[in-house]
């Protein structure tokens, strides 16, 4: 300790870190001092501290160097100096992973661990466990058991915590210490009790029944340690979550009873646990919230902070439950601690009524400049949810956001604000113009390239559809003059979109783009030249295909296809239609999860990450029989065709090619006394389909997934595309020893009936987002148009009908037409996609609620191929 004090003093005097300029090689050189006899504890301690420092700074020490230093350090065991010895323990722990033969100190540590010096025993146990592997554990097992039940709390705790670490690698050995851990739970020391409970739980973690027993046992007889109580609450919460039990569970009663515990820590933990449970009713929440309410007026700032933070989280799910605390939260707004005040205000924003918004906003702005970015983000998120909740307040909120954008702040903060504004624009058409205006102002002085390009992209998409698109041109062109290359390129693209969308602006846009052709950056010049040429053609179809729609194929797929094309020189030009399309559904899901991504939805496929479909394409190409089917058009989501807890578990993925369909069956054998061989799936072909080939899975051992494929030829008649395939799993069973997995030589044939596999229209269609549906609609033309009217009597709401239509046709909803404005009785749904073979397919569905409670639909299909129109038009019927 003296050493540390002295160092601290030096630090204060010198005003800097005494270790800041250490160099690895010189420190290791100094470590040779350890070899000298007699040992100078003070000097050696200082050097060892330096070694520890450089290791903790992340310096990488080679194995040889580390081993040399480690062995030098082992000589310090000669000294009985307590400071030095404890530093040595730390050194052993740090170097146990990088040096070799660390086992050398085993006996020395065992001696210390069983010795008389209590202050050596705990650290020695920890160091010993860090150098011990599974094979050596047996030899120290006896000592560990003794240490766990030692009467010195520090020793017992050290042994328990070390056991917890050891159980990661040697679960089996540690399991045998359960009796000792059991005994340690009864200890009087609060830390020992906590650690012992932790170990007990860890040992029994995988056995749900045992954990349940553990909780019910300890919830009855009272534990002394508040820490142990907190742990018990967490275990109980996890159990409730796993069982989906809700408040009816006896575990819940236990947690609730903890609300009346005398320790604040336990009370808080219990309240927090109740609040975080998934299916709780307002009645279950009430006691927890009232406890948190009490904490709000506690004199301890930590408690106030914890309470208000938890209330903030509750407010997201159950704003009504928190309303009761509004008065206490109001008082906290003026709290001296800014973090508490911020959380209080944001909670109030979530629970408050529309009328209080103005007042609260005023209050926040008074101290916005005093809080850290992290909390500013919390405020922004609160405002975002307010925007969604009270669309009418958008002008107040937008103004506030705009003033926040103008203030100082880091990237994360600014991004959050921009995301918030973008989300508001998309949710609320009334806020669009104001929002775009604020964003335009922001990019005038924006240091973050990512944000500037994102906003320019948004302007390109949304700007042309506003009443006065021309006013945005100036902002965009300013970027071309003032910014770096990436932003300039984004600005050029945005300009081109204005040109393509608005006839009256086209001429001016061409003039501006022509100026960009002189740019110093290649990318900017290329884009400008390309766009100018496309726009000069004056063909709507051309500009909508190459400017508005963007790239619709998967980038990874395109790269592979082009590489393939260059390898095999041929006369035929490269065909874009052979490239697999970007899988829209995945992007779509992401958008739903995090609304902040909404702005990126279109630009997303540009990111060259391998999609799920690319992975499948590669897998299939690796099977020789399936390699020559051409480009993979679409892979469906996996469908379970067995119950998930049966003997054999099978999932089916359908891969559609231009003339074939491949059924991929992922099978898992859940019986540990059987090995399946020659596994195939026998399918009865539906009308017009023809099963061509089966590729068996050679062997399917226990719990190792295997794959078998069945190849079917699609019907010659292009209008027959759907069908139902009854399936049977056929295989040879060989019994085997569950432990060794050695199969018997003899086997017998067996089969297992699976559920039917359906091929639907959706399997032949790939989702594609058309940013400008009307243009695409005109472009395809009425040549192959089909129209029909249906009465969907089974649907009662428009939302339900839309969901079903999308699911059935497998097309991408465009222009946000999948969202129905509230209170409307009629709606038009626009769907777009590409049909197998590369034909564009567009669907317009006019929906109306009819008086009998059903939905009437007028479906219009346009496509570049007459058969496709027919297939889609008949699909719903």
């Amino acid at each position, binding site marked *: 300790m003296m050493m540390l004090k002295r160092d601290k003093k030096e630090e204060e005097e010198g005003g800097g870190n005494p270790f800041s300029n250490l160099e690895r090689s010189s420190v290791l050189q100094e470590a040779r001092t350890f070899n000298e006899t007699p040992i100078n504890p003070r000097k050696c301690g200082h050097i060892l501290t330096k070694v520890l420092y450089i290791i903790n700074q992340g310096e990488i020490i080679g194995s040889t160097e580390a081993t040399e230093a480690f062995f030098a350090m*082992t000589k310090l065991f*000669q000294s009985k100096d307590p400071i030095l010895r404890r530093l040595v323990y730390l050194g052993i722990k740090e170097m146990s992973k990088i040096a070799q*033969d660390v086992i050398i*100190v085993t006996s020395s540590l065992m001696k210390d661990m069983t010795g008389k010096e209590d202050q050596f025993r705990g650290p020695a146990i920890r160091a010993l466990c860090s150098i011990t592997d599974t094979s050596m554990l047996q030899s120290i097992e006896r000592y560990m058991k003794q240490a766990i039940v030692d009467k010195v709390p520090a020793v017992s705790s050290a042994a328990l915590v070390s056991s917890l670490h050891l159980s990661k690698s040697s679960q089996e050995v540690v399991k045998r210490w359960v009796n000792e851990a059991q005994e340690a739970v009864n200890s009087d020391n609060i830390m020992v009790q906590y650690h012992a409970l932790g170990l007990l739980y860890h040992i029994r973690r995988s056995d749900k029944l045992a954990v349940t027993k553990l909780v019910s046992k300890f919830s009855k007889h009272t534990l002394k340690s508040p820490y142990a109580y907190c742990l018990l609450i967490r275990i109980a919460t996890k159990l409730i979550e796993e069982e989906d039990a809700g408040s009816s569970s006896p575990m819940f009663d236990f947690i609730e009873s903890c609300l009346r515990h005398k320790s604040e820590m336990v009370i808080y933990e219990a309240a927090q646990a109740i609040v975080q449970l998934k299916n709780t009713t307002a009645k279950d929440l009430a006691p927890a919230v009232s406890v948190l309410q009490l904490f709000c007026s506690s004199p301890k700032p930590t408690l106030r902070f914890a309470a208000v933070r938890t209330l903030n989280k509750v407010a997201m799910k159950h704003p009504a439950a928190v309303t009761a605390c509004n008065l206490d939260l109001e008082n906290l707004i003026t709290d001296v601690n800014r973090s508490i005040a911020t959380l209080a205000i944001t909670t109030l924003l979530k629970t408050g009524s529309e009328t209080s918004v103005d007042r609260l906003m005023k209050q926040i702005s008074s101290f916005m400049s005093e809080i850290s970015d992290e909390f500013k983000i919390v405020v922004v998120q609160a405002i975002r949810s307010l925007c969604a909740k009270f669309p009418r307040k958008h002008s107040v909120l937008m103004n506030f956001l705009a003033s926040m954008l103008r203030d100082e702040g880091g990237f994360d903060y600014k991004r959050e604000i921009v995301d918030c504004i973008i989300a508001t624009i998309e949710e609320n058409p009334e806020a669009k113009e104001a929002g775009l205006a604020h964003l335009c102002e922001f990019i005038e002085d924006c240091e973050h390239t990512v944000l500037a390009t994102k906003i320019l992209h948004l302007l390109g998409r949304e700007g042309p559809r506003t009443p006065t698109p021309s006013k945005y041109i100036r902002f965009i062109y300013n970027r071309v003059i003032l910014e770096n290359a990436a932003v300039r390129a984004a600005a050029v693209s945005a300009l081109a979109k204005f040109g393509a969308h608005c006839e009256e602006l086209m001429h001016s846009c061409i003039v501006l783009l022509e100026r960009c052709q002189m740019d110093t950056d290649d990318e900017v010049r290329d884009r400008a030249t390309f766009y100018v040429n496309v726009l000069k053609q004056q063909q709507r179809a051309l500009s909508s295909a190459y400017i508005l729609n963007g790239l619709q194929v998967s980038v990874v797929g395109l790269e592979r296809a082009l590489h393939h094309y260059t390898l095999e020189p041929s006369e035929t030009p490269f065909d874009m239609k052979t490239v697999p399309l970007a899988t829209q559904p995945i992007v779509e899901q992401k958008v739903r999860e995090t609304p902040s991504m909404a702005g990126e939805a279109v630009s997303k496929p540009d990111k060259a990450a391998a999609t799920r479909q690319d992975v499948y394409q590669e897998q299939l190409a690796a099977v020789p029989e399936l390699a020559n089917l051409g480009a993979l058009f679409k892979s469906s989501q996996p469908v379970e065709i067995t119950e998930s807890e049966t003997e054999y578990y099978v999932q089916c993925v359908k891969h559609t090619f231009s003339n074939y369909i491949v059924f991929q069956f992922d099978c898992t054998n859940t019986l540990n006394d059987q090995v399946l061989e020659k596994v195939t799936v026998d399918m009865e072909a539906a009308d017009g389909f023809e099963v061509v080939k089966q590729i068996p899975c050679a062997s399917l051992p226990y719990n190792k997934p295997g794959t078998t494929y069945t190849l079917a030829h699609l019907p010659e008649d292009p209008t027959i595309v759907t069908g139902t395939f009854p399936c049977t799993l056929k295989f040879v069973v060989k019994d085997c020893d569950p432990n060794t997995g050695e199969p018997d030589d003899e086997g017998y044939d067996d089969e297992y009936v699976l559920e039917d596999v359906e091929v639907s229209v959706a399997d032949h269609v790939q989702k594609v987002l058309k940013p400008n549906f009307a243009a695409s609609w005109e472009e395809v033309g009425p040549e192959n148009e089909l129209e029909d009217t249906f009465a969907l009597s089974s649907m009662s709401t428009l939302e339900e009908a839309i969901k079903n239509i999308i699911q059935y046709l497998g097309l991408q909803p465009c222009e946000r037409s999948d969202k129905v404005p509230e209170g409307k009785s009629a709606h038009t749904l626009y769907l777009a996609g590409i049909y197998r073979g590369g034909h564009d397919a567009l669907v317009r569905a006019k929906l109306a609620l009819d008086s009998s409670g059903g939905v009437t639909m007028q479906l219009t299909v346009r496509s570049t191929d007459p058969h496709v129109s027919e297939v889609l038009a008949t699909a719903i019927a």
Partner: protein
Amino acid sequence: MGFFDTLAQWLGVKKREVSVLVVGLDNSGKSTIINHFKPSESKNHDIVPTVGFNVERFKSKALAFTAFDMSGQGRYRNLWEHYYRECHGIIFVIDSSDKLRMVVAKDELDLLLQHPDLKNRRIPILFFANKMDLRESVSSVKCSSLMGLEQIRDKPWHICASNAVTGEGLSEGVDWLSDQIKDLIESRKK
């Protein structure tokens, strides 16, 4: 070393510190020998195979020894060499009742003598022909010929028969070792 330390040593109040290395095959009795020198209150009654090494301190009439009691098990013997450089003397313990493994002990001894850290040093080596009480044990003379000790010319060595359980022969050996080390230090000073 400070002035007071020198003074204390001259007056014989504080003894000179030296370190010795205790090596030998497993189950030859190294830890038991060291245990014998420890003061009776800190004696260990239950001796288990050493893993790695142990540091023990004991005093003879002139010197304070720090003994590195190394593990004799086959897989740890390669770790001995890390401690060769700093030691002032070596105690090599031989199980005189184990004729079968005497050649293994000889091999280990040859490796030790050839090691670059020891090869050119005039370092005293004390051999204990341990377990002399057992009936099948060989005499110290036979032991030294089996081990080929007469070949060692550049280092002072001494062998004595011992019984680590009763302590017989141990102090005689250690007295020789301390004399040798003292001489060595004296001669180095001159």
